[in-house]
Each structure stands twice: as C-alpha cells, then as structure tokens.
C-alpha cells in the first residue's frame, strides 16, 4: 500500500482535492474539465504503480495518456487564446499534427516503447504556446493583477513542467540507462517528481485564485 503513495501521487491527490473543492461549482466548462483530467491523472498514476508492482511494463498506459494530456492542455490554451481571435482551425490543425506524429512514432517503434519523441514535440509546442500567451497578455492594453490571475498560474505551471520535461524527453534513452546510486531512482523519475510538484502547486494556486475570484 505504501508503494502507492509517492511524491507524485500525493501531489496529484492534493491538487485533485483542491480542484474539486474550488471548481465544483465553476460555470466554465474548461475549468470544470480540470476535475476530470486530474482524476484521470491520479487514476493513471495509481494504475502505473500497480502495473510496476506486478512487474509489468506501464509505458503503454503513459503513452495512451499522452493523447488526453495533449488534448486537455491544447484546449485550455485555445480557451485562453480565443479572446484574441484565435481560430479553432489552428487547434484542430495542431491536434491533427500531434496525432500524425504520435501514430508514426508508435508505428515505427512497433508499440514497444514510450512515445518520447512525440512527448518532446508536444513539450516544445506547449513551451512556445506559453511564451505566446505571455506575449499576448503583455501586449494586451487591459491590465490584470497577475499575482492572482488564475490562467496565468496555469500557464506558469505548464511552462515549468514542459520546459523541464523537454530535456528529459530529448535525453529519454540516455537517462533511462542509469540510476542515481544514492537514491536508487532514475534521473528522469527525480526530475519528473520536481516538475510535478511545481506544476501541481501552480495549478492548485490557480484553482484557489479562481475560487476566490468567483466568491
């Protein structure tokens, strides 16, 4: 049982609890969808640990989850860009491109490994999307108090996470080869633990800001 409670799962569970508390009565469907997404994140994480305990590979699970992750984050970015007259066709084009790269990678590695190249491409795109969002809010004449502006903190979390994970995804094979001797954990695992804590802390703060704004 103890194996299920790692830094990752605890962080995700805390974030899900905050999300449920803060966004349960939210009227915006994009914000409410975070509840389902974080529930899926927790479910995938627990299933991944369970599969690992059974000495079965769990990369397939994370590979399939990549599609949900990409759709969720892309749709949220689309929601943010929408008020700047961003066309829906761009969202569909990106999702189409993502699915093509994803399908091609799965086909080339014969479904035998995590789609890390697709994840690397996705990370780069999300980093660019975050930077583009910063540019839009800086150019916007309307002043926002960014310290408590929920979308800004969601994007901050995304930037930290995908900026950090870009390197891990690029050096995926290289990093998986060895373990830190002192901790007995892979470099990738440690890095993702740090990134997850940052991501979900930013998101939790964004949910709290959203809740306070609504009330």
């Amino acid at each position, binding site marked *: 049982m103890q194996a299920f409670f790692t830094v990752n799962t605890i962080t995700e569970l805390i974030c899900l609890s905050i999300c449920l508390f803060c966004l349960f009565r939210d009227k915006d469907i994009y914000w409410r969808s975070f509840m389902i997404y974080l529930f899926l994140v927790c479910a995938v994480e627990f299933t991944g640990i369970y599969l690992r305990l059974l000495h079965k590979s769990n990369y397939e699970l994370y590979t399939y989850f990549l599609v949900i992750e990409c759709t969720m984050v892309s749709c949220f970015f689309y929601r943010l860009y929408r008020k700047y007259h961003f066309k829906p066709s761009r969202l569909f084009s990106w999702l189409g491109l993502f699915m093509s790269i994803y399908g091609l990678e799965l086909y080339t590695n014969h479904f035998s490994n995590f789609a890390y190249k697709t994840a690397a491409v996705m990370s780069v795109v999300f980093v660019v999307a975050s*930077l583009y969002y*910063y540019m839009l*809010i*800086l150019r916007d004449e309307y*002043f*926002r108090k*960014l*310290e408590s502006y929920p979308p800004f903190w969601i994007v*901050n979390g995304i*930037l*930290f996470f995908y*900026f*950090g994970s*870009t*390197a*891990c995804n690029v*050096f995926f094979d*290289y*990093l998986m*080869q*060895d373990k*830190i*001797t*002192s901790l007995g954990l892979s*470099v990738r695992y*440690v*890095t993702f633990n*740090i990134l997850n804590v*940052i991501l979900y802390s930013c998101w939790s703060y964004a949910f709290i800001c959203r809740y306070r704004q609504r009330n």
Partner: protein
Amino acid sequence: MQISSKELVLLITITTFIFLIAPIFLIGYIFLYNKKKARHAEEKETLKKTFELELLKSQVEVQEHIMQTIASDLHDNIGQLLSLTSMTLSSIKADHLREEKINTASELTQRAIRELRQLSKMMNGQELIKKGLGTAIAYELEWLKRGLTYEVRFKETMPGPIPEHADKELILFRLFQEILSNIIRHAKATRIDIELDQKDGQLLLMVRDNGKGFIWEEKLRNSDGLGLFNLQKRTSMMDGTFHIDSIPGTGTEINVSIPYG
C-alpha cells in the same frame, strides 16, 4: 552507452537548474513589466482625470461668464428701462380713476425691479459665493421660501469659507442648484432639508426631500437619470463622493462630499 553516477548528478543539476531558473526569470520579468503597465495605466488615468477637471472648470467658467453677462444685462438694461417706466408712471398726473390704475402699474413695476435685481444677484454666482457657500444657499432658499409651496430647513455648521477653494464652493453651489431644481421639477415634495457641514477636510452637503422618490438603478437602466449621473460625474471629478439614497414613496436623500481644506 554507459555514464557514471557523477555525470548523471551533474546532468540533473544542470538540467534542473537551467530549466527551472529560466522560467523563473521570465515570469519575474513579466511581473515587472505588468507593474510598469499598471503604473502607466494609473498615470494615464490621472492625466485623463486632470484633463476632465480642467474641462469642467472651463465649462463652469464659461457658464459663469454667460450668467454674469445675462445678470448685468438684466440689471443694467432691463432694470434701467423698468426704473425709467416707474419714474414716468409716477410723473403722470391724472384724474382719480386713472391715478389708481397708474399707481397699481407703478407698484407692479417696482416689484418687477426688485425681482429682477434679486434674480440678477442670484445668477451672479461668484458674487454670491463671496459671502460664503452657506450665505449663497440661504439666499437661494429665500427665493424658494417665497413660493410657500415648500417647508424648507437649512442647517449650516460650516466654520467659514476658505478663499482658495472658492472654485470648489461655486461648483458645489451649482450642484446644489441643480439638485434643488430636480426636486422642484420631479419630486413633488412638500419639505426640503438641507445641511452644510465641514469636517475632516471634507465639505459635506446633504439635501433630503419627502417627495415621491425613485429607484436609482432603474433610472440608470432607462437612461432617465442623466442629470443625476452628470452630478455624480462632476463630483467624482473633484475627487468627491456623490451618494443617492432614494425610497419610492418616501423621498430622496443626496449626500455630496468634496475635499476641502
């Protein structure tokens, strides 16, 4: 490819450091830029407010100038003509029946001259304000009391006018005149209470009537409360507050407060 633990730790440190420090700097920069944007917006707002205040002052000055011209025209031209008429009437010698009619006409002319002088004085705001806002309001109310339609009460607890703030007093006096005019035209009130007070660096004016009242939000929605909205805008331009408390069927209370002192 085999890599040593030392190299891996170094890789983690470098990767984590670069990929975490870079967004921190970026977000920090965005915060700074945003603060700069806020300051710029504040400055813009202040400039806009100053411009609007200057515009309001000019408008008031132009209005005052026009009223002064009309007042002196009334006093000097029409007043003189009426005086001449009165003198002519008093110089006519006629029989008993005609004398009575001439005397009546002469009295009417005298009354017209008095009313005209009072009206001319009232129109000349700067002249009225010279003796203080309280005196100007009292003078205005004297004019209203004569109609016998309203029971008017005026309470003044203002220590004394500040000459540097004559402009503000004049604007407040014009606001008061407009509020009073609104009560006469729309409120169907029988009683009007006015209080003028000065405390904590604020000049406070309260006007309360027992008229039919209204719903402020409804007036705004129907674009019916433009006069009141303008009064509110003019008060806020002087960094003051304008508060309306109205209950349909009971009456309205308007509180105006402007910085003074």
